[in-house]
């Protein structure tokens, strides 16, 4: 079966530093692939290479079997990849509704239909009461929810979440975990970066561990949890 998202030998260098080093990964529809690693392991750079913000120096990215390597971010997005950022990049001076309309600007639907969809999405994220507020008025955790809602608006088959739980209140974390589980159950391939190992172990079908840009371990949650290379990378012992 063709993977929803796949990378083969993906490599990104910044001068002499190899930030992502020959990374092969695959995620199928409905699967949540956890990506773990200490700071500077190359997790976010890997995501940036997949979504086109960085042009990889080597290797390839495939979406549903189509090679998208080196294409501009908007073209890759149209192949069906949505993502969030570690620090939410919401449109601060725009209302929540307008934030959600931006990714569907070119959709052939009436404004009323798009607004209805945006409101349903805000309802799902429990932000509907704030729909006319500016995004800058939201808390950090709510901004992460808004960004997730915005990512889901065009209904992409692949979603990439970069540290969705960082700095978020535990109650909101639980709510986000439920939404991510819901997203995977809806048949989307989820790539999840997190430092929060408890959450990532709970959500992931499979996990890859990165260190200095390389995959040092890959497998099911139990395989990774007890993997000596992962423990060494995290604890330095």
């Amino acid at each position: 079966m063709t993977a929803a998202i796949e990378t083969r030998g993906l490599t990104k260098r910044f001068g002499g530093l190899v930030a992502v080093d020959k990374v092969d990964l695959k995620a199928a529809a409905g699967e949540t692939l956890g990506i773990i690693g200490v700071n500077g392991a190359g997790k976010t750079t890997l995501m940036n290479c997949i979504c086109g913000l960085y042009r990889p120096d080597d290797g390839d990215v495939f979406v549903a079997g189509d090679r998208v390597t080196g294409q501009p971010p908007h073209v890759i997005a149209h192949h069906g990849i949505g993502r969030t950022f570690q620090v939410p990049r919401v449109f601060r001076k725009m209302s929540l509704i307008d934030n959600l309309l931006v990714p569907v600007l070119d959709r052939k639907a009436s404004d009323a239909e798009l607004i209805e969809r945006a409101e349903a999405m805000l309802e799902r994220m429990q932000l509907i009461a704030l729909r006319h507020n500016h995004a800058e008025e939201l808390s950090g955790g709510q901004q992460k929810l808004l960004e997730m809602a915005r990512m889901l608006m065009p209904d992409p088959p692949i979603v990439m979440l970069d540290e969705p739980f960082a700095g978020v209140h535990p109650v909101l974390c639980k709510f986000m975990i439920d939404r991510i589980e819901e997203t995977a159950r809806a048949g989307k391939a989820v790539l999840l970066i997190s430092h929060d190992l408890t959450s990532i172990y709970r959500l992931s079908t499979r996990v890859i561990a990165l260190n200095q840009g390389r995959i040092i371990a890959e497998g099911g949650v139990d395989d990774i949890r007890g993997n000596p290379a992962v423990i060494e990378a995290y604890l330095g012992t």
Partner: protein
Amino acid sequence: MELLILNGLVNGLIVGGIYALVGVSLTLLYGVLRVVNFAHGEFVIAGSFLAFVLFSGFGVPPLLAVPIAAVAFFAAGWGLYYVLIPRLARSDDPELMSFLMFYGVSIAAAALMLLLFEADSRTIDYTFTPVSMQVGPIYVSTARLVALAITVVISIALALFLFKTLPGKALRAAIMNPEAIMIMGVDIVRLSAFAFALASALAGVTGVLIALVFPAFNAFSGAEYTIIAFIVVVLGGLGNPVGALLAGVLFGLAEQMATVFLPQAMAQIVGFVILVGTIFFRPSGILGVRFKR
């Protein structure tokens, strides 16, 4: 004295409206493209010369020159974007390079206008009927009132476009976070070309209004409007179109009121005092919106 103050206020609104348009087009460019267009004043004055040529060569009245300039400058801006900007984007420091490149463009544009129209100041000898109209106790030239009406209509149309239409929202989103908008499937190159074309159209139209409001212009007048545009952009907050509209009007009012209360030489430095004061005390502009890189 009251009449002088009222006169200063009315003229401040008229001149401020023009300054607002000069500033909003520059700030749109900077907001979306992160491009510092040092040739902005020359774009504006090219609009004045277009109105001059249309009127003196073909008898086209300035009012009709407004839509012609809008269309012509929009098309020229669209083409110019693809000639100039993609090369800039490949440089290590596009912002600095844009400053240097457009400084060169400003010199070239001024030289071209000098070649075509020589160094003499030009004026459009078009008169409205009646020549002036009574506004309360004072008389204001009809041309100035027409220019004010056009600036108000354009400002409202621009605000409606930016806040009520989907392409306008995309432009605002691009100003706030260009990287985020790219990964949402919006073609930032096309959007940037549109922003460049829109800013050029606004510059061209503003040039026509300048030809209506001010007594004369020449090939070197552009530099003055570039400086005014920078003052308005800084005062309004970098990349903030609404801020620029407000700042333009405020600056126009301050400048015109200064001519009432201060000697002429002092009044001319008001703009620079505002510029330096804003940078020192309110670097995020009057609306307090800090530009986010």
